[in-house]
């Protein structure tokens, strides 16, 4: 058998086994993206309610608390970057890391020291490869986030936020994650968790709340809950985006594998036909030579 045919046959075989993997991964992503979306949607009312309450409280200036304190010139900011654990999701991680890089550049221009917090192995790999420092990293299950990890991240960030700036605490907390817009569009976004951007709107007058039992205790309770819920709902949304991106990437990988298989099959058939033709002409030439001698 000709060497050429063998080469093509091997290529077809390996491409079709890869195609099976792509197909399986696409199906898994498709099956799980629905669940991830409904989890993200289910956590939205809670996150919204808590954000409203925090916004109302933050608008009240007469309470002395880290939550309502205004820092005129922020010195340090924590930036939480949410990428994925695994690749095979197209440009998902690259896009969100790129977005975080531009945020870091903006912060640097403003003279703010950025402290990166990473979520997902891809983000960690990006920093490790460039020997860049980061404060903390969480990995595992980015496509199916666990509420305990969300609490852990929230706690780490809140601890850092309540620390005084002189002792290494941060004045701002930013969140970079991928927003799920639809099955085909996922957009990396930057959100500032703290301090809250109070919308100075004339029409919405925030009420002056009475606090039970006391303003301090309510705010102490509210701050970690707010951060945790925002982080966890971002994690859920990022996981839905990751799965949707993976589904899309695997779909096009499968399509490309199909194209390759078609191309190689054609080439293999050409090679086989060429070999048969050559053998035939050799036979005929041999017979001719025998007959004329």
């Amino acid at each position: 058998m000709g060497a050429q045919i063998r080469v093509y046959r091997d290529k077809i075989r390996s491409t079709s086994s890869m195609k099976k993997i792509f197909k399986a991964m696409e199906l898994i992503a498709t099956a799980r993206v629905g669940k991830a979306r409904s989890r993200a949607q289910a956590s939205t009312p809670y996150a919204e309610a808590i954000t409203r309450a925090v916004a109302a409280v933050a608008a009240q200036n007469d309470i002395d608390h880290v939550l309502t304190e205004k820092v005129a010139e922020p010195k340090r900011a924590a930036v939480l970057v949410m990428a994925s654990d695994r690749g095979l999701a197209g440009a998902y991680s690259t896009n969100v890391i790129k977005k975080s890089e531009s945020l870091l550049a903006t912060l640097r221009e403003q003279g703010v020291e950025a402290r990166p917090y990473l979520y997902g192995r891809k983000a960690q790999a990006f920093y490790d490869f460039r020997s860049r420092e980061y404060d903390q990293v969480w990995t595992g299950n980015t496509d199916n986030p666990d509420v305990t990890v969300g609490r852990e991240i929230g706690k780490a960030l809140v601890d850092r936020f309540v620390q005084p700036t002189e002792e290494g605490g941060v004045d701002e907390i930013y969140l970079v994650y991928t927003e799920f817009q639809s099955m085909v569009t996922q957009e990396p976004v930057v959100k500032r968790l703290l301090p809250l951007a109070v919308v100075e709107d004339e029409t919405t007058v925030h009420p002056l709340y009475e606090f039970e039992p006391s303003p301090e205790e309510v705010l102490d309770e509210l701050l970690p809950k707010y951060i945790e819920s925002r982080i966890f709902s971002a994690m859920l949304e990022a996981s839905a985006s990751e799965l949707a991106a993976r589904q899309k990437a695997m779909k096009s990988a499968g399509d490309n594998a199909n194209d390759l298989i078609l191309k190689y099959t054609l080439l293999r058939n050409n090679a086989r036909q060429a070999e048969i033709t050559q053998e035939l002409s050799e036979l005929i030439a041999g017979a001719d030579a025998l007959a004329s001698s």
Partner: protein
Amino acid sequence: MAALDVQVVAADHAVWSGEAKSLTGRTVEGDMGILPGHTPVLALLAEGELTIEPVDGGGPIKAHVKGGFFSVDDDKVTVVADEADIRS
């Protein structure tokens, strides 16, 4: 008569929403009843029963809530609990 616009949410799902005549919840300092026209308040919840009297009749809705807080503002009541499930 004015009614309360009540929304009850737990960490991972919306529990109940609708109009109510009154609502009673257990705060860390004891039970607290809310009627329409209540002053704006933000209170921490203790573990305990939350009772809602819906406007459209029927028996009171009882839910077991754990942790969280509730806010009252212009007859809008938002109960944000860590865990909540309706027992009715």
